[in-house]
């Protein structure tokens, strides 16, 4: 890592002819710029700039006038948000809900990843794709189908009444916050399995043999070897689920009823129902800030490099 590789032509003049042309004879430092510029440009242009625009917009007083002419910045939007307690409460609830969903999704996905890595054998890829295919059908349609299953005249209720388990159909299955949580966990499990899978795959099988040689029973092999070594993958999976879920709005719309709304719904409403981009932008910036704080806290607690090493 510390030595600067010499040019191919210095060491092996004949090799230079074979290898050098293929990669322009660039060394690591020169290649750096080649690799660095495309992602940097992409992120700067299509992530940073839009977010900056959004930040600027949050200081716009209203929607009047040409959208891109300059305006006098004002903190009115933030002031009105600060005075509305229900928004803050909802942000808190959404974050806690997302935390719970992330945790549950990871816990339920772990056995899945474990199965695929250690018992899938040659069929692992097949089993994995089988798991992912439902996500190539429309999410909207799948949730609509679930609503039919869970509805008061749906399959589940009909069955339970038929069996005599209940007399009246259960209304608690749908149109509330619980339905939102269950649906999101259900949707996220296959995705959460992926980073865990990657982490489990990287574990050197030799370690299990060594553990067995040292007298560890399978249970201990799991808790002392597998689990700790897969921890980075588990963490990655958790954040992969937790963070986007804070801003989730589609599922609450479909199954949340009148009381299952999350913070993301409020943001979406201000853009698509109220045409109040400044207020929506301000709400988004607050959410961004909150999530950033959470992530930075987590970064303090966990060295991110551990995620990869």
């Amino acid at each position, binding site marked *: *890592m510390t030595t600067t590789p010499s040019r191919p032509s210095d060491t092996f003049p004949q090799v230079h002819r074979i290898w050098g042309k*293929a*990669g322009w004879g660039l060394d690591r430092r020169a290649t750096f710029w080649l690799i660095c510029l495309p992602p940097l440009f992409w992120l700067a242009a299509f992530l940073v700039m839009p977010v900056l625009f959004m930040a600027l917009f949050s200081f716009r007083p209203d929607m009047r006038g040409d959208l891109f002419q300059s305006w006098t910045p004002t903190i009115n939007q933030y002031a009105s948000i600060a005075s509305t307690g229900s928004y803050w409460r909802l942000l808190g609830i959404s974050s806690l809900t997302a935390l719970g969903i992330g945790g549950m999704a990871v816990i339920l996905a772990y056995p899945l990843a474990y199965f695929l890595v250690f018992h899938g*054998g040659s069929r692992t890829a097949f089993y994995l794709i089988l798991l992912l295919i439902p996500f190539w059908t429309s999410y*909207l349609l799948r949730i609509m189908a679930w609503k039919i299953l869970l509805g008061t005249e749906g399959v589940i209720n009909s069955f339970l009444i038929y069996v005599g388990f209940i007399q009246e159909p259960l209304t608690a299955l749908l149109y509330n916050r619980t339905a939102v949580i269950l649906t999101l966990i259900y949707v996220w499990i296959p995705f959460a399995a992926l980073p865990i899978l990657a982490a489990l795959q*990287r574990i050197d099988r030799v370690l299990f043999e060594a553990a067995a040689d040292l007298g560890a029973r399978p249970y201990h092999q799991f808790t002392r070897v597998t689990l700790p070594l897969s921890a980075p993958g588990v963490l990655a999976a958790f954040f992969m689920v937790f963070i986007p879920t804070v*801003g989730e709005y589609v599922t609450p719309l479909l199954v949340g009823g009148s009381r299952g709304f999350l913070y993301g719904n409020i943001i979406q409403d201000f853009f698509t129902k109220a045409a109040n981009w400044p207020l*929506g932008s301000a709400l988004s910036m607050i959410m961004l800030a909150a999530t950033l704080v959470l992530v930075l806290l987590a970064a303090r607690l966990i060295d*991110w490099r551990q995620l990869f090493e």
Partner: protein
Amino acid sequence: MNTSRSPIALRTYYFVLILLLYLPIALLFLFSVNSNASLSFPINQLTLDWYRQLFDADAVLRSARNSLIVALGSSLAATVLGTMVSILLLRYKFRGQSILVGLAVLPLIVPYVVLGVALLILFSALQIDRSLWTIGIAHTVVALPYTLLIIASRLAGFDPGIEEAAMDLGADYPTTLRRVVVPMIFPAMVSAWLTAFTVSFDEFALALFLSGTQPTFPVYLFSQLRFANRLPIMIALAVLLMLGTLTLVFIAERFRQREV
């Protein structure tokens, strides 16, 4: 670990989950052959009418094609960019690496609706018309964290010494990357590509903001949800797409088994 002996519990767990995942899809399939125009029981008559109507429904098919194009393009771009960032983070040391990670992961915490409007504003300011390109760009941005995480996880497990060896043998760095690193992380790249594709294909929130005159499938579906009598055709298409993918997967699995 013995792959032939698999605990009943784990196996059952996997298949129960598969069952739960495919249950709504089975239901959709049932409705797609139901003569009833709305998504409900009872099953009136079995009919293939909706499928027949589907093939005349140019707009529906075009929307599926649009989704495919956007998903292919954005997943490829996201995989390439994700690989680049992984290499930057794990094979180099420079100031600002934390910033790079933060940036690459930032799309995860920006709500899609926010990113959608922000990009809409950006494209409007730059006088870029909304199109499949604009959707593709957005999808690449949001898929990048996933590809990065998956590829970096894999790359971290490999000893950089192998690359050193290659360079000592006279390879320059791009060739090393191409001939040594990429093959090593190729499975992760495929996995990342699959993930990015999945993220893009059914993505709705961003596409709704950024579609121009060519809607993607979920956007088109959402538009048809306003009028219930168009719904069955959309369901027929969704079922077809899934059956098609399943068939491809089974065929691929057959081939692989034959190879073994």
